[in-house]
């Protein structure tokens, strides 16, 4: 991602847009709006790619499956956050925000708790060299079910906000 880029213009592109509305004409604001939508959709698709890849892996590749399921959910969560709140982050600490949802997101408490657990499981899968599959809190199937329903709810939520996916 190189300058010039909307997502590099500041920490929150929605705040930027709101504060420029008094200066820019409606057509220009729509251009920015469309750009936010385009990047949100791209992030969503990026998450879906991780998810599809995770599903295609062999049952025995539990580490890779858990890791990719997590990244699938993480990027879809980023898409939701970018579209609703204008927040886009690239630093590693953003993983701590896996449970950051707008309050109107469907089943938000379920995802808040379960995605934090999936993140912990992903740490076991990626870094726990002496861990076994039995150490997971969510089984591989649980993770697949979780990310499947999360993707579906996110799609409905974003569609309801006018984002075509």
């Amino acid at each position, binding site marked *: 991602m190189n300058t010039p880029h909307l997502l590099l213009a500041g920490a929150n592109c929605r705040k930027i847009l709101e504060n420029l509305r008094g200066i820019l004409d409606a057509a220009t604001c729509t251009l920015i709006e469309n750009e936010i939508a385009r990047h949100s959709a791209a992030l969503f698709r990026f998450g879906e790619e991780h998810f599809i890849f995770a599903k295609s892996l062999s049952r025995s590749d539990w580490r890779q499956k858990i890791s990719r399921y997590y990244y699938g959910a993480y990027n879809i969560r980023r898409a939701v956050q970018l579209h609703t709140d204008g927040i886009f982050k690239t630093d590693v600490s953003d993983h701590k925000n896996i449970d950051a949802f707008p309050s109107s997101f469907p*089943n938000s*408490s*379920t995802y*808040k*708790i*379960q995605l*934090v*657990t999936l993140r*912990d499981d992903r*740490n*076991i899968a990626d870094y*726990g060299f*002496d*861990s076994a599959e039995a*150490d997971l*809190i*969510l089984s591989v199937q*649980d993770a697949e079910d979780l990310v499947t329903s999360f993707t579906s709810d996110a799609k409905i939520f974003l569609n309801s906000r006018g984002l075509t996916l």
Partner: protein
Amino acid sequence: MKAANSLNLEASAKEIVDQFERKTRFHNTNFEIKERSNGDYLILNIVSPSERFFQVISDISDALPESNEFRNRVTIKKRTHPPTDRLSLPETFLLKTVITESLTVSSSTFGTEFLSRYIRSVFGAEDQVIAQSNHLVFGRRGSGKSSLLLYALHNLKAEGVPYVWIAMQTYEGRSDFEAVIDIFIELLQQILTIDTSLTEAEALLDQLTKLDSSPDAELQFDRLVPKIRRSLTPITQQKDRIVVFLDDIHVLDSRLQPLLLSKLYAVSRDNRVFLKISGIEQLTDNWDPSTRKGLATPHDAQIIPLDYNLTMPSKSLAHIKSILDAHAVYSGLPNVGYICGSGVLERLVWVAAGVPRDALSIFLSAISKSALKDQKRVSITSVNEAASVTSDVKLSDINRDASGKIIQIKEAFAVVRDFCISTQKKNAFLVEIKGNDPAFELLQELIALRLLHVLHEGVTPHEAGRRYMALMLDYGFYVGIRAARSVDLFQKEPAQILAKDLRNLPIFQLNLIKTNAVQS
């Protein structure tokens, strides 16, 4: 050191589980502590965890002190190997609590969760009841009248529209005009809690209180009606409208009902005040044609019928199942079928004759009966036994609901029961529709009391022009009883009722009900 750590883990887990149980009312929550390299995890196991449980655990987790070992390390999982004895699950115990609470509906039922837990009626009565017009909600005891009024009330709350809720049970059996005054006093008292600055309403409240013991109270009251009407205008102008709920008007003496309604209508008409009234149709006199007082339908108020008896059994099954499913999901079960044996729900709807509260009550009792017999799920036998116990409650409702004809109703019921069980040995029969016949009116009251149930509103089995109603004696009076095993049952489960089945039913002659019983 390890022992100390273990103690700390136990204390941390206990802190969370205790809070979880307080907030969800679960008991004996199944949980485990999973040890692993990047920190231990607390896992609560629930048969079917829903968003409600995650919301609770999320709130608890957010408020945990730093010292708790499971801060941000607690989750809920689907219980993978629940015991085969499903009636001993904590989820089932919670379901029993939830059903018990739902049996008595009041303005505080389900608190803030009411709308999210409410199950819509079969024919979309909700869309009607929230409309800005007067309504009479009719149905038998337990058919969901109060719940429907509460649905409207909670929608008004969400909209910020003021309302008055009057539980008519307080005025049970009253026939004196002072009861009308008392009801208006209650109405104005509630209005004054909405807006304390209504000086005219406050003054009227004083005047009404003084009227209470006056001999010409009605005349004096009528003089106050225009003022009462005017006193409500400031609120309706500011908040758009006021909705007045009268729950269970039928408990008021039938002679006073049209009079009360006429006074309320005088205050409300063209004044942005709407009336929502519930009652048992056969016991409600909303309009007195001789005095032309009351609420006439459909001009002054529209009727919302809630009770279709057994005329549409498949719809009743779907409705009752959805109510029980909602309670089951709230309790952490996937659906109510999870704790039921085959055919239980179908039998339940049939023995409850499609009345939701009777179904809930019978089901609650059936869970306990099955558990006592060490059955792993609720059985049809337990449903039958529970139904026969419920019949005693229905008989006692005669004293509570019957409109001053207790002896005649009891005698009429004894005649019908004898006809079905001893004479015909069939639980269903036909009776000719004779609207003005006092014996037919008594049968209508037996229907209102849920001792008889309508299978069909009007069939013409033999000669044209003579219409018959198909009725079924309540199951509770013969199922589960050894002596009545010889009774031939008309269907055992909700299914489409065919005309040919009805035509073969025995005909009950109204003159079997003693004339003197009718006239006494």
